[in-house]
């Protein structure tokens, strides 16, 4: 087994999640990048990790109506640092999640089945 390989971008992202941090990457020019990658899209240049303040705005949203279980939110969130990610807005009726809603990140802790991952709450509810 190789011992000198680079850590996977996903592993680094999840290590941050485990510490309660929403991590993203920036290019040499400071352009924010998400999802985590080995190289910068467009240039192939290097990327460095940063931690987001976790505040963002809902860019697009839908409510999924599964065959079994309750409806839930799926949204695209524009973080204030300038990157976009998919997530779920919780602690609000999913049909009341609207484009433009201000949201704040919260980490779902790891379970045996699933690694840790970020979700969002409305800023009002998060206070």
């Amino acid at each position, binding site marked *: 087994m190789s011992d000198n390989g680079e850590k996977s971008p*996903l592993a680094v992202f999840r290590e941050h999640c485990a510490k309660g941090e929403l991590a993203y990457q920036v290019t040499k020019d400071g352009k924010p990048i*998400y*999802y*985590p990658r080995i190289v910068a899209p467009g240039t192939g240049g290097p990327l460095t990790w940063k931690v987001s303040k976790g505040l963002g705005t809902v*860019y*697009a*949203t*839908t*409510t*999924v*109506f*599964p065959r079994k279980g309750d409806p*839930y939110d*799926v*949204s*695209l969130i524009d973080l204030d640092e300038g990157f*976009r*990610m*998919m*997530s*779920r807005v919780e602690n609000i009726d999913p*049909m009341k999640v609207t*484009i*433009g809603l201000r949201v704040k990140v919260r980490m*779902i802790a790891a379970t045996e089945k*699933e690694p840790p*991952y970020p979700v969002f709450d409305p800023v009002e509810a998060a206070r």
Partner: protein
Amino acid sequence: MTNLRGNVAIVGTAESDLGQVAPDMTPFDLMAQGTMRALDNCGLKLSDVDGYFCATAQSRMVAMAMCEYLGIQPKIFDSTQIGGSSFMAHVAHVQAAVAAGVCEVAVVAYGSTQRTVSRAASSSRDPIPHEDPYRPFMPSSAYAMAAARHMHQYGTTREQLAAVAVAARDWAKLNPVAFRREDLTIEEVLSAPMISYPFTVRDICLVTDGGGAIVLTTPERAKDLKLKPAYVLGTGEYISHNTITCMPDLTVSGAAYSGPIAYKKAGVGAKDIDVFELYDAFTINTLLFLEDLGVVKKGEGGAFVASGAIAPGGKVPVNTNGGGLSYCHPGMYGLFLLIEAARQIQGVCGDRQQKNVDLALAHGNGGVLSSQCTVILGSEETL
């Protein structure tokens, strides 16, 4: 760059069995059925085929499977897989192969048994670590978010989106092989079971089995065949993203790039096109593509479709076969758009045939608005 305008023509088209096919039928069976029907349609033989282009979500190495199945050793084979627009890309690749002298008679084929084996079993999805934890109902949720964004920015309504489904249904009533031909109203679309807001099940394409093929050849060989050739005047291909997270603007699809490339090669504009066949996997698609392909201005698609403009008798015939919403949608629908566009030029569409069709546009979409490929076909008069 060499202009390949009109260097090949679609000369034969065929659907395989559609809807719910016989038990144990495979995607390869449907592709073979489509291939032979399309060759019969134009009067060519299997031994004439020296290029084979195909795609399906149900096979990893489909070109190999089909060459074995049909017992052919074509000079070029290609199973480019970019979802529902794969077949438009295949047409572009056929043009290049013919221009390079690699082949003269090419088949583009598709087959799927997704209704029989279930959607989940028919197309495995790549793991997407940055989206999977949120359980989006894909692909519907991605398109639903595009619709939500269009509604937010332009005031588009669910009723306007529903008008797309109703127009498709009204076209399907004119197509004897359409899967759904019963009446459909705006109210029925809105009150159908909600899947991923703002989409009910009636905003979403059918889940059917099906396949088919088209045959393309040179203008010289096209002249001696059974039907009028539909010449390939221009193609445009564009990939803007793979996952919906990375789509730059959910209200502007890559059709805004692929369309102008195809129009430029063909030397025509949106106003010149007689019929539009637009990949309607969801009601929002038709709106986005009408806007991005220059039929209406950005944001005006909702009012346009609600006015009846794209329904039978409207001023712009769109999805004259009933579309993926009402005719058939076996997973990757792009080939059926090319079939209908070519047939409208050939004048063989029966009750739904439009008068004097010289220019037809087929626009394919793949993934989650990810790959966009436009093909413009023309009659001999347009050469």
